């Protein structure tokens, strides 16, 4: 099956002054399959928006290429398959919501009633039917975001690309956008979006990519990351020195307790060593890493590396 979106060895340098350059992306490669939701997460400056802007042909890659349904993203033809929601979408705000969608429809070659019908269908879908004839400048942030999603869907695209669709929204707004994204999946749309709100990604994505300093450090299912179990060993007293000798360099003190995280495959080996030293074990708990922790770990290891 053809990938909906294929990114190959994408590299992007920004010029800073005459000699300096900033590397925003370092050989990013990934594929988004048809009908899946893939979320790209990473801290600010990781290269998420750069990736999305290259997909939308707003920025040009220094190296590498992007294909949309097998078509080079540089071609306007590729954008026939794409709907795009920019971060903090900005509209021609003297227009009403309906007028803006009609304008979007005309840009996509829709004529007369076809555009009007689609506009109202989408306004109903994003629950803006009552505000359809209101000037966009009077919209709240959440309403503007929903209108942004509606305009992205005007041409019935197969792939919807969203840059931080939940940023700046309150919890209700975020839940609404999440529901909208899930409803798009039911319509067999492919969704590719960026976010730094990991909880939202974890909840709605089929796959997650973690981008750190322009490099993809993880690509897989959120459940795979979340369900990877680790163990938390607590020992009464300060035994960091002994643990360090046993190779557990990341032991920390919380109050009077020494805490150390152990991977499942290392558990018995570590426990034998701890018992061998007769350390006063306080507790041993099985725990699951949240996406936040994985993310922080990825950022940490990248920075250290």
């Amino acid at each position, binding site marked *: 099956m053809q990938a909906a979106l294929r990114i190959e060895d994408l590299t992007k340098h*920004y010029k800073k002054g005459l000699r300096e350059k900033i590397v925003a992306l370092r050989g990013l490669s990934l594929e988004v399959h048809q009908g899946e939701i893939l979320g790209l997460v990473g801290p600010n400056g990781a290269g998420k928006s750069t990736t999305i802007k290259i997909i939308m042909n707003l*920025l040009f890659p220094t190296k590498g290429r992007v294909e949309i349904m097998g078509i080079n993203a540089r071609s306007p033809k590729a954008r026939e398959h794409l709907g795009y929601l920019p971060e903090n*979408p*900005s509209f021609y705000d003297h*227009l009403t919501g309906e007028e803006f969608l009609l*304008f979007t429809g005309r840009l996509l070659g829709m004529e007369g009633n076809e555009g009007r019908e689609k506009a109202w269908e989408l306004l109903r879908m994003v629950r803006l039917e009552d505000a359809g004839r209101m000037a966009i400048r009077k919209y709240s942030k959440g309403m503007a975001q929903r209108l942004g999603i509606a305009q992205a869907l005007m*041409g019935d695209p197969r792939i919807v690309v969203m840059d931080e669709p939940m940023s700046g929204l309150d919890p209700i707004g975020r839940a609404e956008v999440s529901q909208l994204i899930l409803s798009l999946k039911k319509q067999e749309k492919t969704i590719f979006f960026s976010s730094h709100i990991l909880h939202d990604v974890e909840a709605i994505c089929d796959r997650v990519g973690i981008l750190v300093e322009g490099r993809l450090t993880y690509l897989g299912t959120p459940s795979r990351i979340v369900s990877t179990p680790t163990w938390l060993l607590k020992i009464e007293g300060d035994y960091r020195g002994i643990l360090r000798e046993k190779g557990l360099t990341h032991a920390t003190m919380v109050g009077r307790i020494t805490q150390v995280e152990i991977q499942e495959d290392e558990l018995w080996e570590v426990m034998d060593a701890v018992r061998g030293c007769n350390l006063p074990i306080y507790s041993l708990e099985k725990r699951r890493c949240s996406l936040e922790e994985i993310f922080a770990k990825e950022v940490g290891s990248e920075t250290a590396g």
Partner: protein
Amino acid sequence: MKPRAEIALAWVTLKEGMRERAFMGIMTFALLLLIASGVIADLSIGNILKVTQDLGLSAVSFTGLLLAFFMGTHLIAKDLDKRSIYMVLSKPMGRGSYIAGKYGGLVALVGLSLAFITLFMLVATFYFYKTSRLYFPPQIAWGKLVLASIFIFLEASLILALSVFFSSFASSPLLALFLTLAVYLVGESTHQVSEILHSPLGQRTSPVLKALAMGAFYIFPDLSLLDLKAAAVHNLPLPPLRLMKTALYAICYILALLILATFIFKKREMK
């Protein structure tokens, strides 16, 4: 293939421009200028009708220039600054279509405004013509007045093309405005400079300076060719062939600027 996307963008640009405060300010100023020109003409010692026409056409020209300078750079800069351009460029249309649509909307905005101001000027002139107490009221060349306004529109369209061209790469609207203004000032004076260089006075000019001035004459638009105000007010002959050549010159210059703007804008990154 119908240019639907370009027309849609032009329409939105026109509507957006009409709601701009700067536009309303310029139009109010133009109308006040026209009313004031009637009062000034009434107080003048000379021929009231000639003064009315002269001041009226100057008001039309001034309005055209103000609109071209400010709306041209402002509306594109606003798109880039507010990033509403993302919504447009993410659709399956080329960057050239964006330039064409935006320019089309700006030309429509300036064209409609100038048509309105010209109509106001013609009505004012007609009023003074009917109420003048001159023994020998001069014949008013109505057609030439309209023609002069059309050429003012052509000049404004050329300045709009300049502002679109500079906006296609300038990092700030102020820079685009400054560059447009600079080219306008050079374009207004190249003809006179060329005449001086071809006069006996020009024989004494250094060859390097002469070559530079002539280079500027060929590169920059000769805007004085588009100024028919004096000919219209004084009812001087306007050979049709000369008018056609001048109009063609302006249109070719505009097309060249828009093609260049498209070429540059295609390479511009939307950071």
